[in-house]
């Protein structure tokens, strides 16, 4: 074979090798989950008859409308630490909040474990409280390396939660904070903190029963 043939072969092999390397190196880490694909074949078709088809379509529209709230709802975006009161089309209120840090605390003596994440999902405002007092849970003392008091009155803190609180889920609250400089950062133990002005506005706008969507 002539020597200059290698001038064609070597760059070609290098080029193909490089292309293979690029494609292997940048391939997606995960593989597609076919179970999550909804294709045409999985869905029902409209009846051929025009009247039946429009009836079926109306039924489907009504089902879809049923799952949408008719009144404004609260949305808590834990990714950007933002709280909204909104409808499908418009935002009525927006505030910067703080949500759960996602951290954990383990009591080395008893092995008890706490997870400080804001719960995700759909909830409702179940209570509205003015001038709430915080009944400090055990973890609050463990965090401060203080002994857990036996007197329940020693657990009460009148300042920490601000002027208003709105309960949702399993003992979680949207409340105020004395650490307003930390708004926008995920630092809480699961509750949602708002600045005092935003809290007042939201408190006045939101009745009990308002849906709360947290994602």
């Amino acid at each position, binding site marked *: 074979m002539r020597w200059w043939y290698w001038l064609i072969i070597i760059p070609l092999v290098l080029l193909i090798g490089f292309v293979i390397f690029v494609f292997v190196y940048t391939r*997606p880490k995960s593989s597609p989950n076919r179970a999550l694909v909804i*294709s*045409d074949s999985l869905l029902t078709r409209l009846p051929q008859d025009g009247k039946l088809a429009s009836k079926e379509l109306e039924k489907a529209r009504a*089902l879809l409308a049923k*799952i949408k709230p008719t009144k404004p709802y609260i949305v808590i975006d834990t990714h*950007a630490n933002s709280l909204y009161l909104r409808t499908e089309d418009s935002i009525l209120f927006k505030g910067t909040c703080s949500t759960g*840090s996602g951290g954990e605390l383990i009591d080395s003596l008893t092995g008890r474990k706490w997870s400080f994440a804001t719960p995700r999902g759909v909830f409702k405002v179940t209570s509205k409280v003015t001038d709430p007092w915080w009944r400090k849970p055990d973890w609050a003392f463990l965090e401060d390396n203080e002994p857990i008091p036996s007197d329940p009155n020693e657990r009460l803190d009148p300042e920490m939660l601000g002027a208003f609180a709105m309960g949702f889920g399993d003992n979680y609250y949207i409340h105020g904070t004395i650490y307003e400089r930390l708004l926008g950062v995920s*630092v809480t133990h699961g509750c949602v903190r708002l600045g005092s002005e935003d809290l007042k506005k939201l408190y006045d706008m939101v009745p009990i029963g308002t849906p709360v969507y947290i*994602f």
Partner: protein
Amino acid sequence: MFYQNKWIFLFLGIFLCGMSFFVCKKTSSKNASSPHPTATGDRLRSELEYRLIQAELLLAKSDQPYLVVNLNRNELVIKLKGVVVWNQPILLVQTSAQDVEDFARYFEGEEKNLVRPLLDKFLFTALNKTPDSVLTIISDAVRAKPELMQRDVPERFQLRWSTDLILEVRTEIIGKPKEKLKSTMLEIRHAIQRPFGEAHIIVKMSPEAALTLYRLAQPGLSTLIYPPMQNQALPAKK
């Protein structure tokens, strides 16, 4: 003298033929006509709406949020239990109407998928929202790990539903590259892949909106597409 080494030319010939065939196949599939050419536009719209409602109702049963790429209303929406929790207009950058149509066509594929899971995401450049020094002070005060509080505000990232189906998000902030080598390799990959067929749209959004989308978009995120209406086979005007 070339004829003395036929195998080289045979190899080159096969390679070039293969490449040409692949390019032609991709190009012809791009130009393929829409399905159901005989059905009426209203019927097709109703069919599509019915399928979309069914898909929405299926997704709304899940406790997980899902992403809606609504090319009809030019909107990206995150929904939870069927309810809008985040929405942003699709502001296209360096993207033509054909690119948008390609995106819908690639997304739907031959099986006419309305919902696909996100395959992966890649962050090109980002800016630390909170400086490390501040984080250290905060983490000491609240006894939380700094890495849990750290939020990279993305400047530029990609969401991929398959290797050739990409939505790229750009913001106006100026960040730092996250993985230089992989970023470069990914750029090269797109440059190689594009002539062979790739659906790639670029959208611009605010840093805060991009942060939400980037952090929510984990592999497996269910994504529903509302294809653009002009993509549907409408009856030809007489």
